């Protein structure tokens, strides 16, 4: 009976349970075997109690040393080879998972309707309506512009707001406040080596070319925005072009000259005005349209510059927001401030 119990305690399951409970060590395992050991040791006469005690102490000391050796070995392994192995394992798993995802996506793409086929389910009555009635209902020759700024105008308002909110978040994260300087901000400014240190700029080639190009780029941006309902283009692309023009000007002439006409305040005022104009005018047009009231907005003659109801004005609003935001992103990511 006793023998069965001892066997059970030495088998792998109770050892595993002990390990789970309180992290068994080699020493603990040895202690569990004590009952048996007593029988194995040669039956010493009663006077040899001290000798036996010394033997046991020796045994414990050896076991402890072995255990510590083992632990230090494991630690060293996990820091050097183990870390490498884990990294390798992670990389292989990542590649396998990615290949699996690509394979699944390719399978899905293989089941999609054929490319460029006019009978695909995506080309349904919604796009038919936009194409066949769009010009009469919105007055815009560019059907996409009519769609995003008339049928789905609130969508575009949300889009401009996303851009504006992103600019605000970047501002919060990156702007080095000059008013409330805690010591932190000042230290940061000194550490960052402000780009304003390199001013006034006197790169002659860049300045000559910029003085020729910047007006052209801004003009082209205005053209894209104003013709958004007639030709390809619109507020987003035109605003990005105008923002690029401003960035070129900043690079050529430096912060001090740019700040004569574009400061943080300009950004705030222009974005706020453009977004509120957009929201208010679109709310008006939705209100009158939904309640069958007469409104002063008319589609006009399609193809004219000032036609298509609100679309050119909304394009201007969107273009201003995008232009300001692009410029703000650039100045904030540069060393230096807006």
């Amino acid at each position, binding site marked *: 009976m006793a023998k069965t119990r001892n066997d059970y305690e030495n088998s792998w399951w109770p050892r595993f349970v002990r390990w789970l409970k309180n992290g068994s060590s080699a020493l603990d395992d040895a202690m569990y075997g004590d009952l048996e050991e007593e029988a194995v040791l040669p039956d010493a006469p009663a006077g040899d109690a001290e000798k036996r005690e010394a033997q046991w102490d020796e045994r414990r000391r050896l076991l402890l040393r072995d255990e510590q050796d083992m632990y230090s070995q494991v630690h060293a392994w996990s820091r050097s080879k183990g870390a490498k192995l884990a990294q390798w394992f992670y990389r292989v798993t990542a590649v396998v998972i990615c290949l699996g995802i690509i394979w699944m996506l390719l399978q899905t*793409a293989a089941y999609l309707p054929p490319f460029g086929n006019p009978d695909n389910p*995506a080309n349904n009555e919604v796009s038919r309506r936009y194409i066949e009635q769009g010009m009469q209902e919105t007055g815009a*020759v560019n059907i996409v512009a009519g769609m995003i700024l008339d049928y789905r105008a609130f969508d575009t308002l949300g889009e401009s707001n996303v851009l504006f909110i992103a600019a605000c978040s970047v501002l919060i994260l990156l702007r080095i406040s000059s008013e409330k300087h805690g010591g932190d901000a000042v230290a940061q400014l000194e550490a960052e080596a402000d780009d304003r240190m390199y001013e006034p700029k006197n790169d002659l080639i860049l300045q000559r070319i910029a003085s020729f190009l910047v007006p052209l780029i801004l003009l082209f941006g205005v053209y894209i925005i104003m013709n958004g309902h007639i030709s390809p283009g619109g507020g987003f692309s035109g605003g990005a072009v105008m923002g690029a023009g401003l960035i070129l000007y900043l690079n050529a002439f430096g912060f001090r000259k740019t700040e004569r006409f574009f400061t943080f305040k300009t950004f705030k005022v222009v974005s706020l005005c453009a977004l509120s104009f957009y929201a208010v005018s679109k709310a008006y047009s939705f209100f009158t349209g939904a309640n069958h009231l007469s409104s002063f907005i008319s589609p006009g003659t399609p193809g004219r510059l000032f036609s298509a109801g609100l679309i050119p004005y909304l394009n201007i609003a969107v273009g201003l927001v995008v232009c300001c935001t692009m410029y703000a992103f650039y100045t904030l990511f540069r060393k230096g401030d807006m």
Partner: protein
Amino acid sequence: MGFFHNYEEMAAMILFGIGFTTLLLHKNMIKKIIGFSMMDSAIYLFLAAKGYIEGRTAPIVVDGVQSMEAYINPIPAGLVLTGIVVSVSVTALMLALTVRLYRRYHTLDIDEITAQVRKEEQ
């Protein structure tokens, strides 16, 4: 069904997978952001491919022709426009956060930043 049509969609899927792999495999946060942008581009390619119809032109009314048979589907174009704007905003936000992290921890390695954060917590 078959792997030998829908080349554009296939390319978009592979590009998406490459972007995702970049996101997983690189420790550098700038490279992670690049992978994210690649995934965005893959989505635009996919949407634009879905809107295209063989032999038709861009949806801008020319000479008063307004039949469905003359133009491609305008809806994916609008969706791609929305997507581009949102991805620009998200990229800017991610980069700003990265700049802040770099200013504080002086590294772009995400594992090192995590280790330093843990050390600070203790």
